[in-house]
């Protein structure tokens, strides 16, 4: 039985809420959202800005030093002075490297800090979305959205944005320095660099199509190989190997064609970007010659101007290479915002606190029908019953009799079509979902186990529960010897999906989980599969201990379990066909329960009910 259509109100924090609103109001503005994520980290942003400013300015210093060296040497400076300049240059080389590392460090630190927060927010948000969402979205897809998309964002911040800012600083600083020397040349250089930058950044986008074609051709070729390998026996026994090789070579020829097309494009782009800087260099050398002959600049300045046309070549080339990252990050951000814009469909307006202690349960005239299905059927029909605090109710019935829906109603997984359900005298509508959740506990048939230690499986990763509490709970339920017998005791790691435990043992885990939370109302859905006798005895004992002093509803699959409960409800087509105290029903030889008992207490209820019909 799956606890479907569980809905709970989401409780997004402010950051998530503002991001989600961002996405609703202006879905295209991812960058503004990104900015909002970063702004809370003012101190770090300030630090990184300082580092970036220095890192951006440093490349400008080298050519200045050389220019000074040239001019001072020409003016007959002392050796000591020249050695001093040369020494500074060496130090500059070292500090450039250090600054590059500092940029990488601060940018990576900030980006992982910011995106880790986003990951937490997204996980929290997703965990609060209703089951309709979870049924439509596979866990794998969610992982890729919460981790993959966000990682693209993180790479964007650390790999692209930081470098782009540094390159921007270099660009602005460079123009400022040249303007200061000669504003006309500065202006000319500004225009040239604007063109160069625009050219470089626009180039890569155009190479994308060819790269995609090549990827597709390679993908087809590999797909074909995979298919041939999978069908290798058929090819072998039908002499088809040569055919496979021939068609593979045809696919390879297509790869070659697409590779050449992509490289043609790549070569053209490389030549253009190269030409931009070569032409810039040649023009400035010609200008240098003219200005030198008129004596309006020094030789040092001439050299400086030439070097300055070349220093943006490397950073711009690298940025152009990484424009793909920008696209990936934009895609990631927009998917993230979409995810945040998902809302849960249930209202959560109640605020009445539940009374303390075991909770009595009352159902009055509860009906439920699935409306949106093709044949609206009343799955629960006028159910009225009450369970006193601390009492237990066993529910019997065939598949489709309404047991599952009754459970869902009690857990507020679904809302009754009419009638009311109340816990401790408070209608479910008036209780806050989180409050309800903290007071009730469920053991479903398909217990979800995690690929983690027994301890983590019991505490659901709650680190506030320590080992001694876990030990005490296991001891209380009589399971300590069972767990102690495992290879590493409570630290034994379970395989994927809890591999290593049987269905019965999974129930034991779930029962302990529940016991650790000490809820005031428990709902148990007994395992229907056959369980070995030792485990069965343990389950029985643990259930007895768990429901002792608590209000309990047990969807029973074994009559031996039902015998020990206070009341029995037999459901048929959503109606209560029998309801009463266990002792009274077993005494009445005409009751359905008594006739079931006559078939043997050992038999599974589903089989028994079928036999009885």
């Amino acid at each position, binding site marked *: 039985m799956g606890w479907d259509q569980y809905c709970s109100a989401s409780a997004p924090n402010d950051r998530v809420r503002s991001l989600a609103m961002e996405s609703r109001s202006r879905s295209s503005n991812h960058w503004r959202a990104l900015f909002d994520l970063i702004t809370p980290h003012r101190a770090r942003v300030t630090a990184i800005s300082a580092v970036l400013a220095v890192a951006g300015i440093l490349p400008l210093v080298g050519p200045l030093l050389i220019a000074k060296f040239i001019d001072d040497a020409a003016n007959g400076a002392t050796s000591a002075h020249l050695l001093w300049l040369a020494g500074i240059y060496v130090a500059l080389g070292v500090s450039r490297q250090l600054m590059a590392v500092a940029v990488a460090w601060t940018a990576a630190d900030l980006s992982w800090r910011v995106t880790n927060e986003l*990951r937490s927010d997204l996980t929290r948000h997703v965990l609060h979305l209703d089951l309709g969402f979870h049924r439509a979205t596979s866990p794998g897809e969610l992982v890729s959205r919460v981790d993959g998309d966000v990682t693209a964002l993180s790479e964007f911040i650390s790999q692209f944005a930081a470098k782009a800012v540094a390159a921007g600083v270099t660009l602005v600083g460079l123009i400022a320095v040249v303007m200061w020397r000669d504003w006309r040349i500065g202006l000319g250089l500004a225009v040239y660099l604007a063109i160069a930058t625009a050219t470089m950044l626009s180039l890569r986008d155009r190479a994308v199509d060819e790269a995609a074609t090549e990827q597709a051709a390679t993908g087809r070729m590999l797909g074909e190989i995979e*298919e041939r390998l*999978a*069908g290798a026996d058929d090819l*072998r026994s039908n002499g088809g190997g040569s055919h496979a090789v021939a068609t593979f070579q045809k696919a390879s020829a297509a790869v070659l064609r697409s590779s050449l097309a992509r490289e043609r494009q790549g070569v053209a782009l490389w030549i253009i970007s190269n030409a931009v800087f070569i032409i810039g260099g040649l023009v400035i050398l010609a200008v240098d010659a003219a200005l030198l002959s008129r004596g309006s600049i020094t030789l040092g300045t001439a050299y400086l101007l030439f070097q300055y046309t070349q220093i943006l070549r490397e950073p711009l080339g690298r940025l152009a290479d990484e424009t793909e990252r920008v696209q990936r990050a934009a895609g990631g951000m927009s998917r993230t915002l979409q995810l945040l814009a998902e809302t849960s469909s249930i209202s959560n307006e109640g605020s009445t606190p539940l009374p303390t202690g075991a909770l009595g349960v009352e159902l009055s005239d509860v009906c439920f029908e699935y409306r949106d299905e093709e044949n609206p059927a009343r799955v629960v029909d006028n159910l009225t019953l009450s369970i006193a605090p601390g009492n237990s109710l066993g529910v019997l019935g065939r598949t489709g009799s309404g047991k599952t829906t009754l459970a869902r109603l009690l857990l507020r997984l679904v809302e009754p079509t009419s009638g009311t359900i109340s816990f401790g005298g408070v209608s479910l509508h008036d209780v806050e979902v989180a409050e309800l*959740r903290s007071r009730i506990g469920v053991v479903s048939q398909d217990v*979800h186990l995690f690929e983690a230690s027994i301890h983590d499986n019991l505490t659901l990763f709650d680190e506030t529960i320590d080992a001694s509490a876990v030990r005490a709970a296991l001891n209380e339920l009589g399971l300590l010897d069972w767990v102690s017998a495992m290879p590493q005791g409570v630290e034994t790691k379970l395989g994927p999906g809890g591999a290593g435990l049987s269905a019965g043992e999974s129930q034991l885990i779930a029962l302990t989980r529940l016991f650790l939370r000490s809820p005031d109302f428990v709902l148990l859905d007994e395992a229907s599969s056959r369980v070995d006798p030792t485990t069965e005895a343990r389950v029985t004992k643990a259930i007895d201990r768990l429901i002792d002093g608590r209000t309990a509803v047990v969807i029973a699959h074994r009559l031996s379990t039902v015998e020990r409960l206070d009341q029995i409800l037999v459901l048929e087509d959503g109606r209560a066909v029998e309801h009463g105290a266990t002792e009274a029903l077993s005494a009445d030889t005409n009751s359905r329960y008594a006739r079931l008992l006559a078939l043997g207490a050992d038999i599974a209820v589903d089989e028994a009910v079928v036999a009885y019909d």
Partner: protein
Amino acid sequence: MTDQTNTAQTNTGQTNTEQLNTGQIRPVANGWRTGSFRPRLWTWSWFLWTAFFMLPLASGWILKLVFDRLETNESVNGLLVAIGVTEVVRWIIFGAGVYFVVRWWVAALSMMRTNMLFAQTVSGGPKAGKLPGSPAESITRFNDDTRDTVLWTDSWVDGAGNLLYAFGALAIMSTINRGAALVVIVPLVVVTIIARKLTPRLYAARSADRKAGSQVSSFLGEVFSGQLAFRLAGREEAAVKRLERYTSVRHKTAVRDTVLQQAIEGIASSTGDITIGLTLLVLVPSVRSGEFSVGDLALFVAYAVPLGELPRYVARLITSREQAIVSYGRLGQLVAPDRPDDLLEHNEVTIEPNDTMRRRDPDPDRVPLVHLNVRGLTARYTDAASVQTGGVSDIDLDVTAGSFTIITGGVGAGKTTLLRAIVGLIPISEGSVTWNDEPIDDLAAWFVPPNCAHLPQIPRLFSESLADNVLLGRDDHNLASVLDLTSLSYDLGAMPDDIDTMVGARGLRLSGGQAQRVATARSLLTTPELLIVDDLSSALDVATERELWLQLRKTTSTTIIAVSHRRLAIDQADQVITLEAGRILQ
């Protein structure tokens, strides 16, 4: 290599848990064999790329002349034109270099892939290899490992160009100022040592980061698949807390990885800077003596930057060698076990536009079947993936030409194993198979069309046209008749492109019955002497199966051995063999 900016190698050398005997792999000999597969393309690549890397020596020299003339106020126009021309020549060389190297590259990849695919699909013979893992797993070998080995050979070309450039640069520099040239070597050596020291730490950091990353994503996977457990227990925050623990671990590993990578990659550019600084230091005395020229300085600066790249190329050469050794080992597992050299056999690869593509190997000659005898055949099914170890023992079987033999028996009795053993898909451990009293050693090579065709229980179709699936590269003079025989002619009318209809990935666009009949047509195409048919009942209903047998018996004289448990087949059979637990039930 074709993309100059993409020189940083971030490959980590994938961790390999499999046992690979890489000790006997000779990376240099293998690399040479890969390179010399297309000698003309390879030689041109060497020539062009070396020229490409060396040309900046010329432009640097001209730049020196430019500044020397600027110093004396002479005209530089001629020199500027010379720089322009040099650059244009370099562009042309670049374009040509890319053209040759890409063609060589794809040809080398195709050579290895062809050899492996051939080993995996060939019918018997010494070159047949076994698949080491699942087909999907092998795709990473066909893709990544082949690329890594070609990259290794390719890195020689880059390495040589860079090395020659470095020698040339140092030689030219030493003619200008011996001291300055010597001092340039210092940072190169230091940086190479530092990079070599840091690189293992980068690998360690990277693998720690990978581990931390997979911990995050696998925990997220757990959380999202078990979301209900957290929600029903109100433990959403506990999940987020634990996630934060894992993400903060990755925060640290990722930052460490980024910093180390930057430290290593940034070394190239800082080498250039430090080199220039040291050069200035050494040049100071010559300023005094008046030997110093701005042109010399310009030349030193121009040469220093590419020189700084050298350590990176050396590192790349070393990394790709290590990577290539592992990859050669993994690729060697796809060709015949004792013949690792088959991987690099210079075969006939036809991928250039002018090549004519054709099926290479003809079918073997037909040997008309008189009688087939199986004696004491024992074969075990040794598939690591399947827990069951089925098999057949001591099977005797005699079949005469034109007869119809049915093999029947319960689930797991060994029926399929027997058929697969006869056609050579499973090695037989004991016993013999004779064809007209001639013992057959290599069953897989013998039991192919036109002598034998095998129709498996779930035949595999491939994503090509219906006709290609039937023909498997053979000529089509028999096509129409086998399509008639299998009633496919009726289905063709409803298909968009008649016999050229693409059947989809693994034939999924066809119905199960159609796919089975396409496979049947495939097996009948050469009118084989012997037809071996596994259970058809999963794909064909009773009426269709009966029709098929009747048609086959009526229109061909093919000898048939078939697995079936249907009455209709058993009724038509000349002999019925019943298997139980791998033995013939007497």
